[in-house]
């Protein structure tokens, strides 16, 4: 991750003439496949009911809630810096893009132990509306994330593609957090 190119990789960059929709469709298809794959795995494997706990928390659920909340906080940083990158809010300076990239990387890495615990120990469940929604959003999030990363690899995608992908990721995480941590806390 050290070879980060020009700070514009998250920005709309100089919109090249003649954008292509093809790569967006392919990226979307791959992201969709990731989501479906996660859902199928979560549904088919037998939940173990067991997963490694993370030291220092009162319970597995508390650890997950804390990690998910850190990820949620970083996701808000993501939205704010993205608005800065796109010039929608007066946030300027060479730090904005790197902060956006690294907060995103950190957020997704922090989310992984939570997601693995959900998938491995609990699986895709459907015993009530909240749980169905949470299971669906969980599968959705990593598909949306894959979609966004693939969009980022190219400069020739339409200008709306990246904000769409970023918005999907943020919406997915917000929905996940609301259907789990918020529920855990209240």
């Amino acid at each position, binding site marked *: *991750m050290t070879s980060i190119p020009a700070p514009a990789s998250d920005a709309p960059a100089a919109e090249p003439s003649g954008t292509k929709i093809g790569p967006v469709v392919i990226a979307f298809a791959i992201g969709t496949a990731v989501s479906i794959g996660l859902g199928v795995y979560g549904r088919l494997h037998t939940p*173990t009911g067991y997963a490694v*706990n993370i030291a220092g928390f009162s*319970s597995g659920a508390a650890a997950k809630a804390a990690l998910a909340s850190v990820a949620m906080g970083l996701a808000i940083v993501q939205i704010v810096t993205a608005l800065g990158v796109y010039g929608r809010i007066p946030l300027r300076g060479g730090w904005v893009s790197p902060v956006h990239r690294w907060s995103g990387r950190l957020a*997704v890495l922090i989310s992984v132990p939570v997601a693995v615990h959900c998938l491995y120990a609990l699986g895709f469940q459907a*015993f009530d509306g909240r749980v169905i929604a949470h299971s669906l959003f969980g599968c959705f999030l990593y598909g949306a994330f894959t979609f966004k990363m693939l969009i980022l690899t190219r400069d*020739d995608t339409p200008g709306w593609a990246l904000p769409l992908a970023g918005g999907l990721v943020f919406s997915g995480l917000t929905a996940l957090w609301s259907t789990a941590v918020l529920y855990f806390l209240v």
Partner: protein
Amino acid sequence: MKHRSPLITLAAVVLAFAIMFTVNMLSSPPSSRSTGTAGPSAAATTAAAPEQTAPATPSASASETAEDSEFPEKVVYAGRTDDGPAAIAVAVLGNQAAAYVCDGRTVESWFRGTVEAGRLSLKSKSGETLQAELDGDHLKGTVQIKNETQKFEINEASKPAGLYRARSSKTTIGWIVLEDGSQVGVQTTGADSSAAPQLDPENPQVMVDGESLDAAAVNGDEDL
């Protein structure tokens, strides 16, 4: 492809997933393995169990007749919660009942209560509730686990399947032995819960912290 760093990020996330999964698989406790959930071949057998109960979701007429039915004088029901990883066992003796719910890891609850005309209403010390009623020869109901309500529909368990408990001055252990011989148990010392040691229902003795404990089948009228 113009930029590689998003791909590297993606690869790092995939790698992180792989590492977490590996760590989880390697560190499954022995008792969790014995429930057959760690190995793919055994997983198939336990996966079949909840599916067998699924089509038995009662029609309205079935639950109407259930209102009239009575529990046998002494009976134990055991199984898994619908769609969930937790195991549940309910022991009924006369008009007394005891139940235990656990995930084989950290979550467990003991319930006590009474029986009235084919209906159970149990409570745990921390106030969680378990409601169930007879439906034909199986027991169906709901249980609160950590603020979540889970449904269950479980069958009669015949020995050695059933509910077992061991207790020392500091430690309490509960085991649910399922009809297929697999067991799910949790051991609690103070506020710390962990997977229970393997129980041999024929010779129910376990070693905890160098102390030998006798486990006994729970009948339903015990003080828990």
